[in-house]
């Protein structure tokens, strides 16, 4: 899984989300936990983070994979993220643009 490495000497992380962004193993664990809990909102957030991490490392294919998952859970959950993610994926030629 692609990730953004924590810069050396950076200030200690203050929140769970920052920890997850900076540690691929923790992100994996958090995703598994969110799947186990059926926590759809957290799945949207974490898969989006995973996509951003993949983009940061230039792994476009992985990014689209994670964006797809983020979108699906956002679609299931309802709310504005689904529309945003759909636009991103449609612009990348990965799915058709939906009406929301």
């Amino acid at each position, binding site marked *: 899984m692609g990730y953004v490495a924590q810069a050396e000497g950076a200030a200690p992380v203050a929140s769970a989300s920052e920890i997850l962004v900076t540690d691929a193993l923790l992100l994996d664990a958090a995703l598994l936990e969110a799947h186990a809990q059926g926590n759809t909102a957290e799945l949207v957030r974490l898969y989006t983070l995973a996509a951003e991490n993949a983009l940061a490392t230039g792994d476009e294919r992985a990014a689209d994979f994670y964006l797809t998952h983020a979108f*699906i859970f956002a*679609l299931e959950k309802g709310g504005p993220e689904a529309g945003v993610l759909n636009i991103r994926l449609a612009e990348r030629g990965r799915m058709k643009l939906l009406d929301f």
Partner: protein
Amino acid sequence: MSISDIERRVVIAPNEPQVVIASGGFAMNEQTSLSSVMTDVNKANGLPNAHYIDPAVFDEEKQAVLFANWSGIGFSKDVPEAGDAKPITFMGMPLLMVRDRDGSLGVFQNTCRHRGMILVEEAQKIRGAIRCPYHSWCYGLNGALRATPHVGGPAQSTHEDVNMDELGLFKVRSFVWRDVVFVNIDGNAAPFEEVHKDLMARWSEFDGPLYHGGEAASFQLNVKTNWKLAVENYCESYHLPWVHPGLNSYSRLEDHYNIEERGKYSGQGTLVYRQLRDEAGQTLPDFADLSSKWDEGAEYIAVYPNVLLGAQRDHSFAIVLEPVDCGNTVEHIELYYAASEADTPECNELRTTNAKMWKEVFEEDIFVVEGMQRGRHGQMFDGGRFSPVMDGPTHNFHHWVASQISQARA
């Protein structure tokens, strides 16, 4: 009459297939003879035993009677808000009731168009889309297919040969009347409003809002009987003085009348409906603008095939019969009132008492329908002989069932 007499009798029916004798000597028919059912009540027999105890006939009726007509599967009140979804298995058919954002109620086959996975396992609120738990194909509340992740390969959610517009959930025709959700599964019945035009007109005075009576007004009875026996017992008043002796003090047999419309519906009415009163003399509020007919009148009608409705001035009820198998039925019973619990909290005790009373009445019927079910394993029973005067509503139902089956066989 011996078994061989019965066999001879059923095979003489013209233009009908010959009976075959199942192993063990039981007169199990490949196709039951229905000619003796479809004659006048004075001479008719009831439906043959096989219609109550033979799994093959149960399956035949599933298609010819229940799926080919407007069957009740549940209640609109069970999906009150947008996104509410309730899976229902009706005679093995996985269905899903969904309340859309525009307030409409849709019934879909609860099966993903991809690999046939069951979509929704338990009642829940769908906040965005229905996501198949297998490969995450997603559907809107209107059944439209919204997403097919990775269908074109990893991270590619489109494919030129997968037309999402053609792959929405299969929609089942549905119609809500008196809060009951009716479905026509084979899609070939005439519109509900056409089929039940007369009955809807008959009870049009009760078209005002219905308020469900809350938790106490909802109960189920698991009965060891074929679903049709529950209909038959409900239809007729003949049994009332014997099975419900509590009625005798104020509701005599002669205070009841038969309701029988050939090919449509049947039931019974009373001329002496008596409102429930509490110690202070308070009654439940009446439905608005009823004519004087309903001051002391009430009617109890079987909406063929499997819904039993009752209408009184101050409350109504609906029973959906869920056929489980030949010999088992679940009765889903719901009571409704003219005013909501929130608006008339002073009536809560009356509503509770009323529900308790009806539950006792319906429970009094259990031994009868279960006894008739066991009685139909008597190999010499020939469907029975009706009272020409008292059993018309039951015969009317038998005639309708036989007509549906004959039509399907033709």
